[in-house]
């Protein structure tokens, strides 16, 4: 099964409620994906928070691991190494490090060299990602998702079929800055596509089939496609069943395979656009009674901007 969720806020006055809306949606799809979950939050820097010293628009690097990590020690070591230009805070079971863009590559290099068990889950100007195993409902409660503020969120509740249940196998996959992909379904030709991407130098964090679609999408985008074109290429090249929810720093898309084997429902209002695997996840959203509710048609790419 698996559950996919996307929530794009259009009315800024709703941004403080994003977490609450999101937690309700995830809880409704808990039983579609009780193995593990992952949540991506897009938010502007809180007012009054200038980020790490000297950094205008810092890059956020979300870190996670399949094994136990002493994150306090990691944070202290980063502070010691980079000083006040790299700050950090706990996010879910992992850590988010904020650094000036000029330091992104160096910081990632240091992290992976010093702690080989740690992986970069996401990089973004606006995006932070957490992933954890266990019931999504518990994950939401544990990390206070209901209190989050932001303008866009994507989430996934996972019932694994193609690969193991671990933090690093959980969605969303973030193959490039602020680009996020969650997937309900299964791909059949992913090993072939992965081989061809690897031959072009693309690196993978897991053997998850969905990660292949995410990295293929990123490859098309970096080749110059816009989000809609790139998504069409995913439909063309990847065989299998899918509802994909894709997000960038200012837009969200949804696409389903030709047979619409995996469910999706959209609720659109002037104030927000919400996508979920099932209507149950939309039923408690504000103004749902007057929202335009529809199922995305197979092989149609739907895109909404802020």
């Amino acid at each position, binding site marked *: 099964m698996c559950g996919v969720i996307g929530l794009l806020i259009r009315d800024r006055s709703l941004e403080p409620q994003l977490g609450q809306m999101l937690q309700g949606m995830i809880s409704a799809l808990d039983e579609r994906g009780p193995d593990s979950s992952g949540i991506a939050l897009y938010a502007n820097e809180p007012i009054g928070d200038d980020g790490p010293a000297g950094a205008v628009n810092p890059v956020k690097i979300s870190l996670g691991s399949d094994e136990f990590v002493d994150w306090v020690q990691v944070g202290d070591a980063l502070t010691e190494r980079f000083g006040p230009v790299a700050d950090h805070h706990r996010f879910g079971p992992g850590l988010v490090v904020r650094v000036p863009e000029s330091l992104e590559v160096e910081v990632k290099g240091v992290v992976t060299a010093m702690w080989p068990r740690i992986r970069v889950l996401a990089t973004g100007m606006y995006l932070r990602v957490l992933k954890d195993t266990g019931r999504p409902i518990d994950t939401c409660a544990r990390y206070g998702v209901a209190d989050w503020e932001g303008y866009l969120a994507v989430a996934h509740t996972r019932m694994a079929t193609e690969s193991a249940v671990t933090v690093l196998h959980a969605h969303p996959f973030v193959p490039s800055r602020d680009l996020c992909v969650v997937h309900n379904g299964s791909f059949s030709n992913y090993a072939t596509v992965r081989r061809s991407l690897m031959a072009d130098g693309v690196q993978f964090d897991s053997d998850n089939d969905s990660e292949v679609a995410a990295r293929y999408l990123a490859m098309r985008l970096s080749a110059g496609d816009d989000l809609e074109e790139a998504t069409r290429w995913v439909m063309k090249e990847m065989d299998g069943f899918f509802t994909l929810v894709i997000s960038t720093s200012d837009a969200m898309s949804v696409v389903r395979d030709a*047979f*619409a084997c995996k*469910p999706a*429902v959209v609720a659109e209002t002037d104030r927000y656009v919400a996508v979920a695997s*099932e*209507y*149950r996840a*939309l*039923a*408690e959203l504000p103004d749902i009674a007057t929202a335009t*509710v529809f*199922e995305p048609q*197979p092989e149609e790419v739907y895109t909404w901007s802020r």
Partner: protein
Amino acid sequence: MESLSCDDLGTRAVNHRLHALTDGERVQVLHPRGRHNLAVGISRQIAVTIDGNAGYFVGGLCGSSDGSGPDIVVNGFVGWSVAENLMGGSVRVRGSASQSAGSSARGGTIVIEGDASLRAGISLKGAKLAIGGDAGAMSGFMAQSGVILIGGNAGHGLGDSLYEAVIYVAGSIASLGSDAVIEEIGDEDLRAVKELVGESGFDHIDATRVTKVVSARQLYHFSTHNHGAY
């Protein structure tokens, strides 16, 4: 009339309460909020109104092999496989239905007042399925027996691998599926369509102007030129 609120009762509790009712009783199910498996497995002749949008399998497995069963009305839209495996009675959806409406239903009548999504009437085994609006792609897939009436337009691949079910379409057909063909309508068809129009209340359908789709019977019969293969 008794009211059961989904805010107070779990799905099993709602269904147990429905199963406990006797012929002729009426009941309202409130605040469904897209919940799955509501009003399933009811064999008695009760009237159930679900007041709101419901989830998957609403009204599934209801009715008896003699064609009797509950009359279920949903005042909203429904998820996948509404009235799947229906044996008797009726299920009416005031809104639209998601995929696989009436899948494998053997008896009774299913009425979707709005649109039905992909694969409506898949593997239909004898029930009547009336859709007021459009039907999605691959509707009537491998339908074995029964009638499907589509008041609007039909999507691609209509009646693919059809057996002996008959499909009537008032609007356009995007494309026919493999082994589906259009046949002239006769008096018996006219009677069948008029009856279903009356039952569903779909006055916008002109029974004399529907397109009839049946199986060409080329896929599922053994062909004598294959006898050497056995």
